[in-house]
C-alpha cells in the first residue's frame, strides 16, 4: 500500500468497534445437542466517539477522489490484490456462497487435557450461555468436563469465518476460547531467532537466584490494572460531576443503544446464565453469517463489514 495515502481504506478500519459481537447455535456432544449463545468474556476498552469542536457527533463517509462524491453502500465493491497492482473484484454473493452454512454448531468430537493447549493458541474468550427452556444439558456437560479436566476441541463458523475453538468448563460455566490456527503462529526459525547457545553457568545461577527472590505465590490481578483507563474514567466522572464540558442529550432522543458507550455485559451474562430469555432489540443474536451492527449510529451507511476471511 502506498504509504503516503493514509486515507485509503482497507477493510480492517471498518470493523466493528464493539467487542460485543456474538453467535447463537448448537454445541453437539455426541447426539446431545445444547443450544447456546456466545458472549464476549472481555468488555472492550473505554470507547470514545469522534466529535467536532462543538461536540457534534461525527460520521464516517466514503468518497471517491475522482468525482469527490459521497458513496453509498451499493457504490462500493471489495477487491483483492492477487499480485502487485492486479486486483480481482469480489461480490458479496461470491463470498457468501463459500460460507459453510452447515456449521451452526460446535461439534465436540475430541476432548484434550486442558494443560495440553499452549497459551500461544488462545485468541479470544467468550462465555457460553444456555438458550432454550432447560439448563440440564448445559449443566451436565459443564460438570462432566470439569470432573474430567478436559477441553472440547472443534471448529465452527461465526460471521462467515472458520474458527478453531476450545470449550472449557470452570465453576459450572462453559467458555469458548477461539484458538489461533497452527499456521498463524510463527516458529522461532521463521522469526529468525539465533539458535540457542550454551549460557554462562555463573550468569544462569545469578539469574536463578534473582528469580527466586522475586517469586510470589499469589497473583494480585490489581497489578494488571490499566492506569491510563482509570485516570481517564476519573476525569470523565469529575467533568460529569461539575458539569464542565458536558452536553445534554438532545430532546428527540436517539435510540439509546445507538449512542451509548455503556452496555452492561455483566448484567446480560448474569441473566442469561440463569436461563432468562434475551431482552428486547439490544441483545438479540446476530443473523447467521452477518456481523451484528448494533451500537452503531450510522450502521446503514457502512458497507456490510466482514472480518478478513
Amino acid at each position, binding site marked *: 500500500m502506498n504509504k503516503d495515502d493514509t486515507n*485509503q481504506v482497507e477493510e480492517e478500519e471498518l470493523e466493528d468497534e464493539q467487542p460485543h459481537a456474538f453467535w447463537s447455535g448448537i454445541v453437539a456432544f455426541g447426539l446431545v445437542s445444547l443450544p447456546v449463545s456466545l458472549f464476549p468474556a472481555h468488555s472492550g476498552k473505554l470507547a470514545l466517539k469522534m466529535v467536532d469542536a462543538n*461536540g457534534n457527533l461525527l460520521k464516517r*463517509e466514503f*468518497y471517491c477522489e475522482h468525482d469527490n462524491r459521497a458513496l453509498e453502500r451499493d457504490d462500493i465493491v471489495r477487491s*483483492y490484490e492477487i499480485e502487485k497492482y492486479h486486483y480481482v473484484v469480489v461480490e458479496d454473493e461470491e*463470498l457468501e456462497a463459500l460460507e459453510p452454512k452447515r456449521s451452526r454448531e460446535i461439534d465436540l468430537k475430541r476432548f484434550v487435557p486442558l494443560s495440553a493447549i499452549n497459551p500461544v493458541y488462545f485468541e479470544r474468550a467468550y462465555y457460553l450461555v444456555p438458550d432454550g427452556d432447560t439448563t440440564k444439558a448445559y449443566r451436565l456437560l459443564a460438570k462432566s468436563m470439569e470432573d474430567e479436566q478436559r477441553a472440547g476441541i472443534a471448529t465452527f463458523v461465526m460471521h462467515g469465518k472458520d474458527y478453531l475453538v476450545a470449550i472449557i468448563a470452570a465453576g459450572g460455566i462453559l467458555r469458548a476460547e477461539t484458538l489461533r490456527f497452527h499456521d498463524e503462529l510463527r516458529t522461532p526459525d521463521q522469526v529468525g531467532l539465533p539458535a540457542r547457545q550454551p549460557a554462562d553457568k555463573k550468569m544462569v545461577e545469578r539469574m536463578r537466584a534473582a528469580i527466586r527472590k*522475586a517469586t510470589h505465590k499469589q497473583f494480585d490481578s490489581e497489578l494488571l490494572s490499566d492506569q491510563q483507563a482509570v485516570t481517564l474514567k476519573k476525569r470523565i466522572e469529575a467533568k460529569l460531576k461539575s458539569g464542565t464540558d458536558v452536553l445534554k*442529550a438532545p430532546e428527540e432522543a436517539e435510540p439509546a443503544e445507538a449512542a451509548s458507550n455503556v452496555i452492561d455485559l455483566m448484567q446480560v451474562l448474569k441473566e442469561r446464565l440463569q436461563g432468562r430469555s434475551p431482552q428486547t432489540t439490544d441483545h438479540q443474536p446476530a443473523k447467521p453469517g452477518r456481523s451484528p451492527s448494533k451500537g452503531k449510529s450510522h450502521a446503514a451507511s457502512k458497507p456490510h463489514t466482514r472480518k478478513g476471511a
Partner: protein
Amino acid sequence: MAIRAMWKGVIHFETIRVPVKLYGAVEDRNVHFRLLHRQDLEPVHQHLINPETDEVVPRENTARAYITESGDRVLLNASELEVLEPEPSRDIEILGFLPLHVIDHRWYNRPYYLGPDEDSAEFFALAEAMEGMQVEGLARWVMRNKSHVGALQLYQGYPMLMSLHHTEEVIPVESLAAPEGPPLDKRELGMARQLIEMLDAEFQPQEFHDEFRERVLEMLAAKAKGKKVRKHVPLAHERSMDISQALAASIEQVRKHA
C-alpha cells in the same frame, strides 16, 4: 525468511538487565480486501462529516466524547488525552515471578517472541535460568504510546512476552453464577464422563485448517484466471432430544467406530 523486530527494550528485575528485541509471534493470514468505487474501480477514501450539515470535518479539528447511558456527551480535547499517555520508556519491568498456570488463559492476549539485542549472553542465560523453574514473570512495559502488561514465559525454548488483558477488561467468572436447576442424574453424569473419556484425544493443532480462508483464496485465484466460480453446497443433519437416550446412543456409536 527472518522478520523485522517491532520494538527494543530491556527486561529488568532485581539487579538483572537483559536487552531484548520484540517480534510478532502471530502472522496475519486474514484475506484483506480493498474497497473500490464500483463505477471506476478507484480505491475508496473516507472522511468525517457532520451528519447534520454534511460538512467535512478535518481530523485536526476533531475532539473526543464519552457518551453516558442517558446520551449526555462529555467532551475531551486532544491535549487532555495526551496528558494521559504513558511516558515513553525502554523498560520491561518484571513485577515478580509466579508459579506457571497461576495466570491462566482468561488473561492471554497476544504473544511476542523475544530475541537478543546487542550481547546475547544475558538473553540465553535468562532462557536457561527460566527452564525447569516452572515460573513466569509478570511484566509491564510501554510500547507505541500504550502501557502493556504481559507474562514472560518460555516457548519452544525462547523467552516470550504474552501480552495480557487489563483487569478492567476481564469479566471475572467469580462474578457470575452458574446456571441452576434440579440435581443432575448420576447415571447421566456417568455416561457423559464416559463419552468424554472415549473421545479423549491429543491436541494436534496442525490437523485444523481455516477451510473458509482456503476456499476464498482458491476462488480469488480462479477468478484471476477468468474461470467460473464454483458454488459450495452446505449439508445439514438432525439431532435427537432426550439426553439419556442420546448419551447411550452416542457411546454406542463411538464404540462401533473405535
